[in-house]
């Protein structure tokens, strides 16, 4: 049996970012990657590195997200120099458009709550009126009346990020094991064994980052990860000259020129089929924001499943019963990649999660339902 310092289960963005950070810290690490038969949110996501709407009522989440966005430039630069892969990170700030007075008032109230909740950490935002927006965004539709803006938001190419993390992990001595669905796992403190792809490997530490698969895996390690799928659909236009200078919550133009439209949310179980009614709604709202989008052809569209904890916040835990076993779950594998590689991985390597991550423990969800 091959022995490692750490095994990471899950080769998506969460697992790959942590595995990369572990290998960089000098651990001998194995990354078990189920492959493209997995639901793998990492190949279907929108590509925002997004801060402004994360953590209303949960300042620890707001802070963690901001920290991750702050780690992003260093991570992107490091991945470029170590792997030669540009992950296309840009941080020009981001906008959330509002189409009527009620939306705008609700958005303003939320941004102000988040500023208050941020305390000393601070939260810079601005509400822009239509005139300011029209100067910033060419061809803004008459339906848009205002927007919220923060300087923290940005975007990146998520497929390049996944590729770069895998390549960087291997170059730092990690072993990437593709097409390896975990079939058996046994836990003893400091001695974890996993059977996958026909072989057994063991390690003193194990990180469960299997996305939706964590729900079934976690209990075997004395942990809990009650995550559920939340479907999102995305439409992609043909490539166009650079027109949008910064990303919006539901619309962004990639470095290559395509314009991505998205952000639907459907509770549809493990179904990844596309529904024309939802696609129509995405397209209609996009054209309300920018009528010139009407001329562009849609060249691709897909549905993918977000990994959603019951309260929408990430889950990070170390097992009390089997120390050395960790969970990491979230629906923002792109945004949180900076934190996972640069902040969380060193904690796992050191064998202890920072106390500031305590509120992310799944124990918060162990509340008996009201009768």
């Amino acid at each position, binding site marked *: 049996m091959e022995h490692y310092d750490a095994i990471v289960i899950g080769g998506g963005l969460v697992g790959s970012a942590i595995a990369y950070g572990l290998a960089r810290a000098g651990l001998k690490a194995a990354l078990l990657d189920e492959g493209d038969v997995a639901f793998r949110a990492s190949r279907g996501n929108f590509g925002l590195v997004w801060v402004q709407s994360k953590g209303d009522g949960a300042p620890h989440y707001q802070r963690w997200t901001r920290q991750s966005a702050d780690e992003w430039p260093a991570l992107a630069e490091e991945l470029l120099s170590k792997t030669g892969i540009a992950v296309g990170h840009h941080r020009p700030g981001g906008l959330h458009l509002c189409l009527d007075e009620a939306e705008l008032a609700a958005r303003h109230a939320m941004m102000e709550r988040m500023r208050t909740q941020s305390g000393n950490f601070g939260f810079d935002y601005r509400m822009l009126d239509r005139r300011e927006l029209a100067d910033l965004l*060419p*061809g*803004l539709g008459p339906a848009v009346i205002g927007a919220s803006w923060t300087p923290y938001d940005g975007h990146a190419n998520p497929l390049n990020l996944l590729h770069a993390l895998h390549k960087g992990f291997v170059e730092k001595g990690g072993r990437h094991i593709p097409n390896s669905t975990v079939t058996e796992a046994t836990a003893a403190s400091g001695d974890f064994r996993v059977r996958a792809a026909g072989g057994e490997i063991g390690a003193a530490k194990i990180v469960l980052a299997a996305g939706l698969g964590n729900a079934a895996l976690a209990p075997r390690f004395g942990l809990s990860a009650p995550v559920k799928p939340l479907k999102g659909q995305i439409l992609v236009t*043909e490539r*166009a*000259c650079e*027109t949008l200078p910064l990303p919006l919550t539901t619309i962004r133009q990639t470095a*290559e020129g395509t314009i991505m439209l998205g952000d639907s949310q459907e509770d549809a179980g493990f179904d990844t089929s596309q529904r024309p009614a939802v696609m129509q709604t995405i397209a209609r709202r996009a054209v309300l924001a920018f009528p010139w989008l009407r*001329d562009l052809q849609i060249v691709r569209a897909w549905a993918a499943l977000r990994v959603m904890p019951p309260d929408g916040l990430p889950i990070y835990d170390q097992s009390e019963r089997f120390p050395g076993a960790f969970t990491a779950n979230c629906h923002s594998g792109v945004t949180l990649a900076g934190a996972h590689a640069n902040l969380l991985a060193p904690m796992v390597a050191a064998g202890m999660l920072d106390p500031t991550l305590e509120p992310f423990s799944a124990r918060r969800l162990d509340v008996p339902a009201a009768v």
Partner: protein
Amino acid sequence: MFRPRSEARRPSVAVTVEGRRIAVPVGASAAAAVLAAGFDSIRETAGGRERMPFCMMGVCFDCLVEIDDVPNRQSCMVEVRDGMRIRRQIGARRTHPVAG
């Protein structure tokens, strides 16, 4: 580089490729018209690389052209019509944002 097969139908549909007049058979694709007109490339990618039609069956998107002022059309999937104006697609298409 390309020439019509000896049994090809008579070239009876008149189109222009980059303003150059050329006749091709009924049922030919716009991509075939560009090839018949003798161009070295049918488009330049957004990254500035030259491309020729490749799969000729609607899959690879390498044969994008502007047809009658509509950019980024898959020319292998478009049948020629009399008077069709075909232009090479140079880079990403333009957008037309109008002040609202």
